[in-house]
């Protein structure tokens, strides 16, 4: 984990207002594990602007440290959806710029040694850490199915950015592409296939996953999303309630064992 000025290699719109930012920072690229994130300043390193003040946490999509992708060694990709002023400023970054990046941060996913069939369940940009995880799973010869839900067709994560060997099943809330409905409606067909589940997405999606997956039946890890202040475990702005009390998404997570959450309540 370090604070560093990373070089911007590219900043590409891959879906409607969804961008992949490629950064070069060899230490971070080497160190990052699937599920971890970086905390990035939106205002550029040269400026002393304090507005917007806080960094933005972005999950790592792929790292060049994994030979399963085309990202050059020493570089890694993060993804963001332009939802406010901070991410709009990120969209202005150009190749040759520098970005002040802190990371990698947080607890990563862990693929169990015995796992042979890994089911990934994504909601929206929750797909990001699961792409990194899929690449890691393929490197370890684990079969991967990725169920991903999006609001609508033009927000879909492009299939050509998903590794070929992954079975990629898409659902849209409005039925404009793929399966019509929420992604968790796809689960019944896959729960018996999988021997491990990893998920990332909105809390209602994760709770529905918890409800369908019988308690203790399948090892399941989830990554939580929360607004963050410091992202290093200090400000306690990003806690989520768990069976063991309030836990920090940035430091104790973002990956938690589903059983730890106490769902269904």
């Amino acid at each position: 984990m370090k604070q560093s000025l990373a070089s911007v290699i590219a900043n590409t719109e891959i879906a409607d207002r969804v961008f992949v930012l490629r950064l070069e920072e060899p230490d971070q690229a080497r160190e990052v594990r699937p599920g971890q994130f970086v905390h990035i300043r939106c205002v550029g390193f040269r400026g002393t602007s304090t507005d917007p003040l806080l960094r933005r946490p972005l999950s790592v999509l792929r790292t060049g440290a994994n030979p399963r992708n085309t990202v050059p060694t020493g570089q890694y990709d993060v993804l963001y959806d332009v939802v406010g002023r901070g991410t709009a400023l990120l969209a202005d970054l150009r190749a040759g710029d520098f970005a002040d990046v802190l990371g990698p941060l947080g607890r990563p996913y862990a693929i169990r040694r015995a796992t042979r069939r890994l089911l990934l369940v994504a909601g929206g940009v929750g797909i990001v850490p699961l792409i990194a995880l899929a690449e890691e799973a393929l490197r370890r010869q684990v079969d991967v199915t990725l169920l991903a839900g999006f609001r609508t067709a033009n927000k879909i994560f492009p299939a050509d950015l998903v590794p070929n060997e992954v079975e990629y099943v898409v659902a849209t809330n409005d039925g404009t592409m793929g399966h019509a409905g929420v992604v968790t409606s796809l689960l019944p067909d896959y729960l018996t296939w999988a021997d491990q589940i990893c998920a990332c997405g909105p809390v209602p999606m994760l709770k529905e996953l918890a409800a369908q997956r019988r308690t203790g039946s399948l090892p399941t890890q989830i990554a939580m999303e929360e607004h963050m202040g410091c992202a290093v475990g200090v400000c306690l702005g990003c806690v989520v309630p768990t069976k063991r009390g309030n836990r920090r998404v940035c430091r104790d997570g973002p990956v938690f064992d589903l059983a730890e959450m106490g769902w269904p309540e």
Partner: protein
Amino acid sequence: MTQGPNLEVNLAPGHTAGLKLKNPVLTASGTFGYGTEYAKLLDIQRLGGIVSKAITLHPREGNAQPRIAETPSGMLNAIGLQNVGVEVAIREKAPVWAGWSVPVVANVAGFSIRDFVEVVEKLSSTPGVAGIELNISCPNVDHEGRMFGLDAHDAAAVTSAARSVCDIPLIVKLSPNVTDVTEIARAVESEGADAVSLINTIPGMVIDLRRRQPYLANQTGGLSGPAIRPIAVRMVWQVVQAITIPIVGVGGIASADDALQFLMAGATAVQIGTASFVNPRAAVDVIDGIEAFLRAESIPAVIDLIGAAVPRAAAR
């Protein structure tokens, strides 16, 4: 100049042991955890001091989400004093502090005078705790939840009670949410505080337009960050003309220039708060920047700058 400028300050000159810092830059309570979290990102031993997360008598889970909201050049927080409680702090945190050269000041919060007394008494005899900072911006359950820091009598009472069980340097952190901060400062000085720190956060609110409700679960939160800096500088400048004990300036400091404003306004030291979230190296950058300023201006010691902007600078 072969020898660098002298950055040393003493936050408790009236105390037998004093609270001597190798430079005037501390980290503010609630923004640096228990000191260990940032150790990978900067050399914490370079700091003048570390002020711990607020410690209460019992462990606290804090408020529901959302707890923080970004605002123009600032943020609101309503964490709700989530902390491990004094027993765990003494058992698990203080032994780590005891091995450091950087002094750690324990920030103490309470909801009754009895709470404060119990926690201060325990911490003041704990190795590794160099001083106490009282957070009096807490609701007093014995006075219908009125904050101690809003009334001179209440502030004096809690300071007096804490002082009676505190053998180590005692700093009282003042709330800005008052008509006349100098009145509160004088009250805590007269009850034996070794120093005051100011300002705590300023109450604020953000409305969630979609829900048509306050955004934070706690409804209100404390505003911090560069947005509040001019208010803090003004209050330090007023308080230094009313009391003789040292002042620790805090509020929106993100750079050495910001810190120098506080020193010239009369602060003997400063605390870096929200800026650490944005730039984990902020406190060290401020130390380096103050030293560079002193060299450039050929000023031999940082104490020579303190109160430079005050009409009749109080002798330090």
